[in-house]
């Protein structure tokens, strides 16, 4: 027996001894159907953090994978974990401590590893099924990825996300096209992983559907179109990589509050 196996055996044995048995409802494999939708705001206009009013005519996002965890979302009000979860933390996968910020994913409970592209103006879409185990779901990781298959690759031009629309502020109008590549988002979040997204806290006990809601207005929190050429509806101004609004868009794209997860039986 290897040292690692020995220690694992000892840990698990002691856990049973210490707790007098395990929670039998935790850890059973389940199927997690998956759907994605955008906030209703996408059909109307929304205000940005810089005072612009935006209406989108295109919003496409490429998702590589989804993971669900029992750890609390990053920087949210915390609640006391039940005893069995605290024990599970001790025995679960190790997670890195970040610096200077901190998010502990905790134990992985579910995943969807088949890449998808989301046309956020097309309404609710069904994504490939995921697998998971029963337990307390509290946070999620959304991994942004360059599209690997058609038609998403053509639709996105190899980018992680593409949006088009019109922005208004103080009599100015800008027709714009913004995009971000994988390297743009990976500069901000390692491997394009948006970690610590909120998942409506729930004890998941059976098969069900996880719905991802994307909030595109969050992508625009830092975007300022001041000084951007007005463009036209037919020929929007395409903001190149490295231009300030494009950098701001890439930062917004990885903002974890842009993605919200919920489970329904």
């Amino acid at each position: 027996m290897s040292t690692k196996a020995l220690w694992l055996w000892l840990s698990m044995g002691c856990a049973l001894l210490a707790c007098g048995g395990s929670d039998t409802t935790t850890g059973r494999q389940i199927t997690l159907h998956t759907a994605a939708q955008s906030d209703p705001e996408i059909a109307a206009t929304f205000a940005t953090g810089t005072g612009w009013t935006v209406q989108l005519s295109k919003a496409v996002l490429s998702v590589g994978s989804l993971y669900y965890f029992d750890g609390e979302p990053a920087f949210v009000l915390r609640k006391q974990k039940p005893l069995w979860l605290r024990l599970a933390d001790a025995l679960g996968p190790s997670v890195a401590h970040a610096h200077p910020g901190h998010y502990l994913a905790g134990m992985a409970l579910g995943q969807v590893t088949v890449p998808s592209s989301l046309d956020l103006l097309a309404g609710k879409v069904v994504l490939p099924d995921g697998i998971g185990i029963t337990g307390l779901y509290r946070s999620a990781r959304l991994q942004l990825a360059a599209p690997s298959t058609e038609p998403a690759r053509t639709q996105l031009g190899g980018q992680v996300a593409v949006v088009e629309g019109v922005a208004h502020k103080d009599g100015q109008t800008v027709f714009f096209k913004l995009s971000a590549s994988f390297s743009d988002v990976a500069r901000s979040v390692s491997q394009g992983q948006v970690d610590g997204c909120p998942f409506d806290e729930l004890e998941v006990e059976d098969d069900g559907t996880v719905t991802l809601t994307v909030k595109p207005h969050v992508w625009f929190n830092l975007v300022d179109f001041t000084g951007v050429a007005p463009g036209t509806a037919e020929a929007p101004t395409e903001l190149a990589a490295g231009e300030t609004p494009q950098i701001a868009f890439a930062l917004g794209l990885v903002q974890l509050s842009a993605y919200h997860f919920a489970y329904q039986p």
Partner: protein
Amino acid sequence: MNTQKLKLVGAACLALCLLAACGEDVGTGEAKFTTWGEEYIEATIPADPTGEAGFVDGWTLHYDKFLVVFHAITVADSRGAVAATMPGSKFVDNTRPGRKDLVSFPELDAIHWDRVGYQIKPALPDSEVVAGDVTDRDMMAANGYSVYVAGSASKVGPDGKTVSKTFHWGFKTATQYQGCQQSAESGQPIEGIVVTNGGSDVSELTTHGDHLFYDRLMSSNDPAVKTSLRFDEKAAADKNDDGEITLEELSATRIDVRLYDPSGLDAPTYGAFVTSLARTIGHYRGEGECAVSVLR
């Protein structure tokens, strides 16, 4: 889970089993907690164009006050057993030199307590003054501050003239630091503390004064993406140019996205950015880390 962690968890569990299942007396020891602000808070944060150990943009910064209020220092284990919790709260000005004693828990079972945590929350009128002025404690309590920093920064401009700015920032954040872990650089990445029979274990709740000036809220795992200390943008936020940078001025100034990265969090202004960073000042045994949760 890595082998080291497995060993630690296994060792802790074995010890607990021995204690709980076998009823064997493992003896007792002491756990002490101190705090220190390190040189950055006691002396200065220098300029360093390389970004390794100071401001990349030429500023040097000196703290006159670095006031912190500690609550609920807790020693526990991963099964939920709590060995000790500090009653009340302790007020410290970490510009005062040296390590300050916060609390001592004698007679703890001599085992591995792998869940150590604490809180930095607003001062209370009865927060014990460990180091600092009572008037500062009262000011903190009256304003609901958990962290208060005051100081000055200066830089020699391209015209050879020295520019100076002062700041007095109070933060009302309430933050839980849990699962504190000694950094691997300190020898072993130990979670919590190991109390030995008849021994005295000392844990330092270190406060990091440089964090407030980071240009990222979370570090990147990509070593090519550096986290740097910046002050130019905070200085420029002094819109009335009176030499004092207020939190209100910082909150009225949006971050320069070419230089600052909220790392997925919501911090569109320098005020929000600095406030988020104020939650990250709490560390453990130097560079050791704790998981951070927002209490308020």
